[in-house]
């Protein structure tokens, strides 16, 4: 038996799993890794709607990192799987409506494989991610975009409410349901949780896709305060997503585009503190550029005001002005229970904007 054949995770097709889940189709993986663990994906059904199954694929990891200790790999992958599963179950138990829902989880057992156990997670089936719905031309699908962004902001607020920071919010992780009517946040594989240590915690490094990262991480700056770092990162990623919806560029790219090449994270050898003021200058130039992409002045003003406080390149000054005032003392020091990155204002703003969209922002 070769390694491909000796892969229990790849051999679930046709099986009936616990709770009568029938594995009816194997699908191409969305990515090599969904972040925490390697997976093989299937369509499953237990009599109702189709659902999406992600099976933990130990074998992929063995192939990719030959020579590494099997104990290490099993521990690492199992921990990653368990971590994501625990977060998803927490979301399910707390009834988070705008986070992709896990329907079931379990472990299949297949005989005649070196590793016979296949842990899996079953999710509600999405139509795809938001990228397949995108049209970046001026003034197109504004109402849909605002509604989707409202959903995402609600999802982030819900996650923060149960002490989870997503940390990898990007277009591919915004999933579409009901023919585009509802957007939900997917893939908690790189998320961080205040009370469960993540296997990918790694000293505060950015756990998500660095091509979407807030600029401070690209210059190796890490805010030592976990709470501020994690929430501030999600706030930036949300603002960046707004920029992507309307421009096709994320905020990090837009800043980079307006930044002199000598300050680029690909070249800069100094500290973040030394470059941050130039990022602010590039950021404002990016906002000016963003303004030209939206015809309706009121909408442009509203969006820019949200993006400005969500994506401000200096993390200490990120967040709504009033939230910063409320969460810091007179000397500018952070209060213990302050929340500089509360999403309520963003949720309310996109709620209003999406309602206005139908009759104003045509």
């Amino acid at each position: 038996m070769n390694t491909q054949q000796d892969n229990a995770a790849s051999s679930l097709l046709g099986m009936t799993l616990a709770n009568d889940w029938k594995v009816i189709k194997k699908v191409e993986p969305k990515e090599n890794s969904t972040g925490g663990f390697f997976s093989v994906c299937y369509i499953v059904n237990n009599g109702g709607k189709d659902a999406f199954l992600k099976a933990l694929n130990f074998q992929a990891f063995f192939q990719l990192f030959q020579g590494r200790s099997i104990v290490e790999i099993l521990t690492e992958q199992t921990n990653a799987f368990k971590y994501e599963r625990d977060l998803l179950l927490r979301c399910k138990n707390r009834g988070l409506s705008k986070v992709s829902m896990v329907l079931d989880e379990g472990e299949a057992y297949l005989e005649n494989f070196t590793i016979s156990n296949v842990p899996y997670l079953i999710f509600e089936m999405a139509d795809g991610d938001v990228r397949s719905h995108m049209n970046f031309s001026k003034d197109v699908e504004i109402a849909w975009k605002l509604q989707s962004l409202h959903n995402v902001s609600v999802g982030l607020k819900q996650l923060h409410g149960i002490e989870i920071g997503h940390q990898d919010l990007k277009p591919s992780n915004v999933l579409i349901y009901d023919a585009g009517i509802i957007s939900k946040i997917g893939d908690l594989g790189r998320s961080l949780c205040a009370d469960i240590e993540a296997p990918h915690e790694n000293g505060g490094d950015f756990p998500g896709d660095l091509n979407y990262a807030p600029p401070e991480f690209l210059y190796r700056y890490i805010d030592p305060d976990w709470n501020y770092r994690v929430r501030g990162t999600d706030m930036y990623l949300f603002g960046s997503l707004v920029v992507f919806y309307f421009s096709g560029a994320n905020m990090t790219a837009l800043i980079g585009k307006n930044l002199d090449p000598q300050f680029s994270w690909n070249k800069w050898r100094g500290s973040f503190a030394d470059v941050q003021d130039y990022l602010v200058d590039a950021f404002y130039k990016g906002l000016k550029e963003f303004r030209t992409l939206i015809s309706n002045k009121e909408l442009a003003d509203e969006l820019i005001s949200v993006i400005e406080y969500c994506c401000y390149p200096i993390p200490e000054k990120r967040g709504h002005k009033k939230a910063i005032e409320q969460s810091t003392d007179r000397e500018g020091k952070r209060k213990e229970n302050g929340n500089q990155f509360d999403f309520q204002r963003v949720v309310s703003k996109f709620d209003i904007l999406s309602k206005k969209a139908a009759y104003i922002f045509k």
Partner: protein
Amino acid sequence: MAVIYEIKERRVIPNWRDFKRTLQLGELGTSNKAKSPIQLSIERSAVDWNLNQNIGTAADLINASFVSGIHNTPEINGAIDFVLSNKSTSSQSLLELIENIHSDKHQVNHTKNSILELDYDTVNDFQSFINNKSFHKVINRTKNRAKLELQNPVVWVELARLYSMRGHEAKAEKAILTALHLAPNNRFVLRSATRFFIHEDKFEKALFYLKRSESTKSDPWLVSAHIATSSILGKFSPFIKNGKHLLNSNNFSDFELTELASSVGTLEFKDGSFKKAKAFFKQSMIAPNDNSLAQLEWVSKDDKRFQINPFQYENVINPFEARALDLFEKGQWKDAFYNTIKWFLDMPFSKRPAMLGSYISGSLLNDKNAAIILCEVGLQANPHDPTLLNNIVYSIATSNNHDSLDKYVNQLLHVDLSGLPNESKVTLQATLGLAALKKGQIETGIQLYKTAIDNATKIRNEYLKNLAIVNFARELFILNLPEKDDMIAKVRSMKVKDSQKDLNLIRNEVLEKVNKSIGT
């Protein structure tokens, strides 16, 4: 009295340009060898693109390509082709990202040695600088931008620079203080602020903000600024020791150290240590900028043991000051004058290029019009500057059109002489004497000239004394006053050093005029 131009002291004070040109000059970069940039990957976006090709996944991959700096893979090229073939669903920003990836703008090199906001080839073109009605629009636009970008220190610095160019000192200070509040440790802000405060004679403020900054101790550009500013005040900078350490640390490029080496070299030079000064100046000239080049040019005029030909440093961008000083010293007035124009255009708030340029054109090239224009432009940024007022009065008085003579004489009369050096007082007395003679106030004019000559004698400044005598003699001759013979005799008998090319030129012109009239 003739217009006088003299640089008594020069220090390596940071030059202040707009942000864009400062970037182009490379003075904001860093080459800290201890830190390496982060490495990024496009793998996740490339896999997605291969699985599902649409405008969203294409945009995703193009973003990843741009942010990571990874270009030219089959997947990226495919995504770019897809977007270019589907422009109707794309955006201008996405198309521009593609342009950036294609042109690989990160590889741009600057090969020019002149980077100016505006460039003029003739003095008449330069005149448009005075009458530039669009300038207030530029200020308004920048003011509005600053209001929109309240947290952007770069815009506040630019606003301060524009205000400085028009002599709005209070507004400029407010803007620079805002920038310092927003970015107290930023090199661009601190260097600009240092130059601004020194321009306004607020040296202590410049030192305060430099010393307060956390960056100063480790940034050679700022250490240099602190040493140079302290030196103007005759103070000992606490950063000297650290500065010398930075010069030997091997952590910076030669270009990053050029001003610091020059500042420390100047200190050693002023302390009389030729050997040490020479070593530091040598280090500063490995990769000089316009400022360190001009500094050594100035030092070389003061002490002939230092030799420099600024034209040999072809890679230095905007070397106008050094070249103007060098050409002036060599007596190449016309070329020196055009370099002062470029120098002024490089830093339009600065008075020194306007002083030197107006002196050259008014006294040495006999181009009164050019001198007046330069003074007028210089006075926009420095409306009460006694030297510029002196120079414009002199140029108008010695021209054929005295229409605005009273206006500037009145301004000159309001100058507070108490804080001026004796040399300046002599100059102003002589110039006011000249103006009085031109206005027919003969007795007053003669008295003022005589006072200037007496005072020059008292302060033992032979050069100034001779210059006053030559000018006085010329005016007496033109007016055909009885005192002329005595003064012309003094002109004939005076001994002028060969190195005083400007005085020689003016003296010869006067004698030529006199000799011509008497047919000798």
